[in-house]
């Protein structure tokens, strides 16, 4: 795993690519801002934003740190449930509820991470999956708070008050831009993390754990911190999902949702800045198009994913970036 993931700007960078890398947040934001104008299905566009953000959080852990987690549904679901519960049961304002979702993602990440990081290598995927299953059952059984099998209903949000302006959250386009605001903020934070010295340590741990340790870095702590940061992005994505769907289905916590992040991230290109969004867009478009003529869309998604693992391990965006570098 270590060597085939090239550092994003390690080979002789062309001036154009260097420029694009430096302004990656602005370019990605520009793309996301224009996207709904060319995309006819607004609700789907919002889902692409939300799942892109979820895959982005997963990518920070898998693509940049090199830890494969199969338990991210717990972080995503905790964000969604806590945001929903704050609104439904406690009548919190929407911005506080989103904040709570984000914190919930981090808190669950801290617990799962602290346990899973005690094991190494391939155990990690199994332990994270098992622990997320445990979180699933806990939320499943807390029927009074979460609605159990029926999911949490009634996360209704009609008007959003931003700096004195009332914005209609029921209008798909304005809803898109509200969600987009959070996503752009997340992109900016991620870019800052990756560009910081800590970001360099994250990639150093992926490339060579022993050498990073010998250089005096606390590898375990770096892993735990990255897991918690990943939880923040996923918790935020979950909170936005709760507001967008106005319900939290129990499937949000399910193990298949963890697999979704893995698939989107790999399809798009792990360890690339914008790949998770490309992966989420392709996955959701594929799901929507294929399910028009067959209910067995999972077959095609599975085939596409296996083809990706076998032939395009760098993903679609990663392959494009490689071509541009060559």
């Amino acid at each position, binding site marked *: 795993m270590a060597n085939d993931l090239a550092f994003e700007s390690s080979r002789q960078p062309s001036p154009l690519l260097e420029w694009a890398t430096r302004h990656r947040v602005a370019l990605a934001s520009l793309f996301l801002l224009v996207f709904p104008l060319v995309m006819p299905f607004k609700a789907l566009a919002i889902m692409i934003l939300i799942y892109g953000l979820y895959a982005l959080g997963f990518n920070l852990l898998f693509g940049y740190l090199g830890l494969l987690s199969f338990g991210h549904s717990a972080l995503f679901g905790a964000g969604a449930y806590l945001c929903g519960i704050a609104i439904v049961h406690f009548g919190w304002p929407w911005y506080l509820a989103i904040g709570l979702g984000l914190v919930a993602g981090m808190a669950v990440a801290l617990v799962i991470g602290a346990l899973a990081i005690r094991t190494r290598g*391939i155990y990690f995927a199994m*332990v994270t999956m*098992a622990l997320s299953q*445990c979180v699933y059952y806990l939320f499943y059984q807390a029927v009074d708070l979460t609605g159990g099998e029926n999911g949490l209903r009634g996360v209704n949000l009609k008007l959003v008050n931003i700096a004195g302006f009332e914005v209609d959250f029921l209008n798909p386009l304005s809803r898109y831009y509200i969600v987009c605001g959070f996503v752009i903020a997340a992109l900016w934070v991620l870019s800052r993390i990756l560009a910081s010295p800590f970001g360099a340590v994250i990639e150093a741990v992926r490339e060579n754990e022993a050498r990073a340790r010998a250089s005096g870095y606390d590898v375990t702590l770096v892993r735990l911190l990255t897991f918690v940061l990943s939880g923040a992005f996923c918790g935020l994505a979950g909170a936005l999902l709760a507001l967008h769907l106005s319900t939290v289905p129990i499937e949000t916590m399910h*193990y298949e949702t963890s697999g979704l992040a893995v698939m989107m991230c790999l399809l798009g290109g792990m360890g690339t800045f914008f790949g998770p969004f490309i992966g989420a867009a392709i996955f959701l478009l594929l799901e929507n198009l294929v399910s028009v003529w067959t209910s067995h869309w999972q077959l095609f998604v599975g085939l596409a994913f296996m083809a990706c*693992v076998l032939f395009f391990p760098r993903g679609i965006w990663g392959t494009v970036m490689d071509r541009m570098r060559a």
Partner: protein
Amino acid sequence: MAGLTLDLIGMQLFAGVALGAVYVLLAIGLSLIFGMLTVVNFAHGAFYMLGAYVGLWLMAHGGNFWLCLVLVPLVVGGIGLAVERVLIRPLYGRGIDYPLLLTFGLSYIIVELVRITFGKSGFPFDTPELLQGAVDIGVGYFPLYRLFVIGATAVILFGLWLFLERTSFGLIIRAGARDPLIVRVLGVNVAQVWLIVFGMGTAIAAFAGLLAAPLQGVIPEMGGTILAEAFVVTVVGGMGSLLGAVLAGILVGVVVSMTSLFAPEMAKVAIFALMALVLLIRPQGFFGRAGLMS
């Protein structure tokens, strides 16, 4: 807790062992495949489910349960051989995560193909006539079929033990798990050994699926939940250790059945709590070697 007698606890203990037997078979297959190929088989649950469905199909086409016990592992094991040869082999040397991701994608495809062939809803699976009823085991009447599950698992384990410890091929497998490079240097065709081990692992998973079918019926999703539980067993027992898989499988089965006696709503959570405890005290599991996975 009225009516809680020693007999009841004894019965529940037996029920736990029967449940644990299925876990043991799944964990053994996972452990065997991991120990040799260093592949975490995320499709293991799908092969388990496939075993139950192939059994269902054979029964519907004139087969009987006893024939299924032989044919199902052969059929699914054959599919496992093809999967290793065609899909997994190109990924060796590309990093430990890629075979895992591939088997994960494969599990989607297997589940969806079963849904297309057999439909999305589940089927009941009749207990074979000979094994219906209950027998007195001293503490009360225990379903005969569950005793059979325990017995069949014991037979498989004994056979596997003989194969690994008393045959020259088993010697190669044990040596390969310890140091594949040296085994290759000594002139053994390791690729062929890996192929057979993967086939064996999937065959045992299919056998477990068939054994579990009369206990809980068959649905396409039956592999997903049990996969997480089988992972718990391998983590608790120590990955790559067969003895660990057996002991941890029985322990997990007993923990599940005991918690469902005292606190039914916590039964599903209990095994994960057990795993968390083991991870805190002994991260490499009961019999895992420290550092094997790094």
